[in-house]
């Protein structure tokens, strides 16, 4: 029903526009303000600036489309989008300075004079007549603004047709998938030392897959305070968290490990981009910074040969925040 209301409102607006009495601007009466001198040069400048804005915006889209996904040239993308904005700003500046008639009048509040009121309305209408190619300028402005909008939306197309976010839910982790180090070697639990941190990946999966990357640490099992239901997720105190920060998707590359805990900040996983800080003892909860949800934790197990393996999937979706990221917080226990 909401759409129907919008439809009625739109019709009313159009109808109102069409039936507005035409001609008070250049109606039959005598002009008060002489017709303004058209500023063709300023108009041309505006048109050229808007055209350049369109070209810059198109440039962004072309650059985004031409370069491979993993190798986008940040400088060129930023430059084209920045130029698009700058040209639109320049065009608006010229319009404001040269085309829109501005005049400051100061007067005491007079008594109501209907005659004068009508004159002022007429002055305002007639003053607006300096622009000679209003439709062209409006069209150019719409083109520039539209291109800017398209350029801003282009990256969203990478999500696929119809904004399908289901690929973001794919992770390589299932019960039994082995953890491997950066060289592809399986990781014996006995080799995981305390006081340091390890990068780990899913066996046989492209390390570029963000759901594959883990940070693995060993903590004192007696000090762990994991949320309910995760009691068996950290065999021997070995914990695995997603290495991708839940704020903006940077790699959690910092591990705070106090040498003398009495005087130094407590252990934490820290993201180098905006300093989101996660507590590994309590299941990756946020203790500082802009991240809005805990680090996803991967349940671990140690197989008969002593190697680390996943004991299921992550408890949260992996990666930076997006809409409805918390809607499906768990993947079911496993599989």
């Amino acid at each position, binding site marked *: 029903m909401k759409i129907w209301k919008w439809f009625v409102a739109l019709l009313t607006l159009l109808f109102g526009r069409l039936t507005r009495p035409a001609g008070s601007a250049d109606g039959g009466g005598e002009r008060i303000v002489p017709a303004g001198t058209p500023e063709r040069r300023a108009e041309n400048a505006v048109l050229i600036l808007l055209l350049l804005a369109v070209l810059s915006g198109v440039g962004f889209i072309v650059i985004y489309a031409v370069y491979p996904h993993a190798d986008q040239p940040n400088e060129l993308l930023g430059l084209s989008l920045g130029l698009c904005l700058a040209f639109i700003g320049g065009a608006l500046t010229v319009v*404001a300075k040269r085309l829109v008639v501005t005049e400051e009048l100061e007067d005491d509040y007079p008594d109501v004079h209907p005659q004068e009121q009508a004159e002022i309305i007429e002055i305002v209408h007639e003053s607006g007549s300096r622009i000679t190619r209003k439709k062209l300028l409006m069209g150019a402005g719409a083109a520039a603004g539209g291109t800017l909008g398209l350029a801003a939306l282009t990256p969203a197309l990478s999500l696929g047709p119809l904004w399908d976010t289901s690929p973001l839910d794919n992770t390589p982790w299932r019960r039994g998938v082995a953890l491997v180090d950066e060289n592809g070697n399986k990781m014996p639990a006995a080799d995981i*030392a305390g*006081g340091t941190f390890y990068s780990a990946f899913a066996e046989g999966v492209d390390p570029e897959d963000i759901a594959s990357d883990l940070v693995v640490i060993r903590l004192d099992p007696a000090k762990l305070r994991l949320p309910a239901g995760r009691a068996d997720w950290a065999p021997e105190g070995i914990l695995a968290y997603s290495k991708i920060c839940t704020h903006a998707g940077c790699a959690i590359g910092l591990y705070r*490990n106090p*040498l003398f805990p009495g005087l130094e900040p407590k252990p934490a996983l820290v993201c180098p981009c905006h*300093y989101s800080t996660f507590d590994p003892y309590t299941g990756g909860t946020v203790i500082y910074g802009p991240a809005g949800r805990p680090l996803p934790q991967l349940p671990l197990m140690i197989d008969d040969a002593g190697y680390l393996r996943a004991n299921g999937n992550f408890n949260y979706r992996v990666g930076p925040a997006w809409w409805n990221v918390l809607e499906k917080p768990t993947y079911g226990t496993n599989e």
Partner: protein
Amino acid sequence: MTRGLVIGLLSVLFGLSAVAIAQAQPNSGIVRPTTEPSTPSVQLGAQLFAANCSSCHGIDGSGITSPRPGAGAIVGMGPPLRGVGAMAPNFYLRTGFMPLSSIHDEPGNDRVLFSNKEIESLVEYVASLGKGPGIPHPDPAAGSLSTGMQLFTLHCAGCHQEDAEGGFVTGARVPPLQGLTATEIASAVRIGPYLMPKFPVSQISNAQLNSIVRFVQSLKNHDDNRGGWRIGNIGPIPEGLVTWWIAVPLLIIACMAVGRRYRRE
């Protein structure tokens, strides 16, 4: 007999108050024997340790686990040093990380306060307290630059930045690595000073460490700033300051200039 003790005795002899004794031992001063032997010795190390280190690390390096007032009105607290070997004292003293003037300070690359002979003596003494790792002697020439860069990116760059400029972690500064000796870099990797993780040989082998040291030392004159301005190269905090205190005011000025009306006088 330490100089502080001599001054203290003289003060008492001349009837001066205890204030003078406190003044004679500034919080960050070094206390030395009146006559030092000409060569490094465990004996000298023990004397220096008792005077300068034991307030925090305890007599015989047994450590102090809760804040305790020590000599010279210093509140002492610090980890035990038994079993740290020669590597840790050598690293902390030669980088100027120790001694600290307050237990709440983060150790940083400060002025080195002991002479070479004194450092060797202290290292010898601390190493004698318990069996521990010796001073590492990495061989960067045997390492590979490209391997070093990969390993540095994986293990170190998260905190120290890709160009080893250092930066911040929540709650601490991260020191820059340029200008450190090979032994200092290798020691830090194994010890994990302050909040740094410590990387055992099972994680970073000695051969890999050679490569890391070679890469770090190759960065001394590295200066690639594609943005045109380095802003300290230590991450988002100075960059945010530039945005808020320089770029935003410039934008506001630009907006005001654009919006100014023509005035007819």
